[in-house]
């Protein structure tokens, strides 16, 4: 590079970086594009050889089939389970996080115990829970899965919210106490509004974790509360003639997550790393 003016060298580097970056993005997005493309293809286009890379026209027949057969209701089940469990996990998790952050309840050991709950492999927990649920009659019920998802989200919510709450200046709470608020009012009127962006980010991830769950749903649902992830695997057969359904159902299950994440995108980097990076 000797002899090339400095600013030119920098520009070349920028162009090069831009090309590599675009190339990488294309590679990483391509599989998702392919999934969406299949969901709009006709059977003839799906099973064309060599493969065709885009559908000639957008047609929604593959989706219509899912709604006609009632399979699309599994997306509704996922929605109910994920949103209700996120709601409860946020309430119980946030107040528990407040207790840990402000009063050091249980010392450091309780915090470690709570986060270690999150690190257990689901399959090791799932089998004991299955036995327990059979005994309670909770298999294939909304309450069973909502309680499970709530409990499974709690360590994450507590961990994240503790970080956010610790950043709130203590003085605000003290002056509210002096002004005559009781402790619940301090929590409700001072702490929660201050931690609002943290609450949003944590709720999004809690929702996405439950939404994306497969193993618990596979084990603990049968027909009534089956989620879309389990429904997708039901189309895997010896023959691959359910491709249109696999693709359409996957897209139905993916769009709500894309929308949620797109709207709250700027909060998400910290949430994805479990609070490892402040920002």
């Amino acid at each position, binding site marked *: 590079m000797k002899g090339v003016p400095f600013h030119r060298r920098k520009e070349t580097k920028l162009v090069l970086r831009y090309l590599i970056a675009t190339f990488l993005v294309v590679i*990483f997005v391509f599989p998702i594009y392919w999934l969406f493309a299949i969901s709009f293809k006709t059977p003839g286009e799906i099973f064309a*050889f060599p*493969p065709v890379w885009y559908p000639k026209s957008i047609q929604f027949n593959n989706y219509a089939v899912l709604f006609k057969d009632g399979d699309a209701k599994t997306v509704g089940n996922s929605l109910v389970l994920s949103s209700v469990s996120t709601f409860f996990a946020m309430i119980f998790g946030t107040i528990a996080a407040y207790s840990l952050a402000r009063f050091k*309840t249980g010392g450091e050991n309780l915090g470690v115990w709570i986060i270690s709950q999150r690190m257990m492999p689901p399959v*090791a927990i799932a089998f004991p829970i299955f036995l327990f649920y059979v005994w309670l009659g909770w298999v294939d019920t909304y309450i069973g899965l909502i309680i499970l998802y709530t409990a499974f989200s709690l360590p994450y919510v507590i961990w994240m919210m503790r970080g956010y709450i610790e950043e709130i200046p203590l003085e605000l709470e003290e002056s509210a106490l002096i002004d005559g608020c009781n402790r619940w009012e301090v929590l409700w009127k001072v702490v929660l509004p201050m931690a609002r962006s943290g609450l949003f980010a944590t709720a999004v991830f809690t929702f996405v974790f439950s939404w994306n769950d497969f193993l618990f749903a596979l084990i603990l649902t049968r027909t009534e509360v089956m989620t879309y*992830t389990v429904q997708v695997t039901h189309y895997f057969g010896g023959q691959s003639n359910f491709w249109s359904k696999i693709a359409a159902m996957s897209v139905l299950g993916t769009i709500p997550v894309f929308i949620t994440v797109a709207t709250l995108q700027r909060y*998400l980097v910290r949430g994805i790393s479990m609070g490892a990076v402040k920002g």
Partner: protein
Amino acid sequence: MAAIAHPDRNFKYCLISPAIFLLLLVGLFPLIFSLVVSFMRVTMLETDTSFAGLVNYVQLFHDARLWQSLLHTALIMVIALPIELLLGLAMAYLFLDRLPGRQLLVSLLMLPTIISPIVAGATWRLLFDNRYGPINQIIGWFAGHPVPALWTVNPGLVYPAIIFCEIWQWTPFMFLILLAALSNVDRSLTEAAEIDGARFWRSFRYVVLPAIFPVMSIAILIRGLDLFRIFDIIWALTAGGPGTMTETISVYTYIQGFRQFETSYTAAIAFLVIALLTVIVTWAIRRMGLAK
């Protein structure tokens, strides 16, 4: 100061008790339940609940398929984790400086990480199809003739297939965390464009790496644990096949419990896994000072 730090005892326990109750209900109680079962000899056909001692735990040591499944899990982890880390780090450097449309490109890269692993597995199953998938088609362009590789069936190709899918889904996760970590390091140290190779490596080794190390180790811990319990992607791609070739510990536990209905034995496997992980995780958390 004193007022907020010394609440009445009821309040602080009141706040934390619903969470503790739920964690005990689905965390601790089923564990005790299954610990008891693991000392019995219950299967789908056998409902005798008399105690059988350590018979299931002894069987663990004679179960070749169990140890192979642990080996498969370790194999996937040992290959996928370093690739995700290095690729993620390289990509983080690439996106660190000013780049037109940076925000949009980073958001697009986030997509694989937020979709369900089961959908990721299903997607790659479609991509890997020997006849109607685009991967063999693309390889065919370079090879000059059609390539009918059976990615999810051929013993030589199933691991690459699983690892491709895994890397595709989780490299962006590493990338996002490392990008955030690098952004917090002093700009003059990370500006690779300004300095020559040798100085770049020296500043990386002695300044940047120590600065991002805490965050990086948490990312490695999170991904390591996720890889240890890998299930969904494999279930969607190969279901543990061909034969038992890609059976990981999670897949094997699932098959023992819900296909073979070896109730007591599965409980014992679950305990082996929990014991292994408890030791490792507790050590890692304390070691890394994550508790603080």
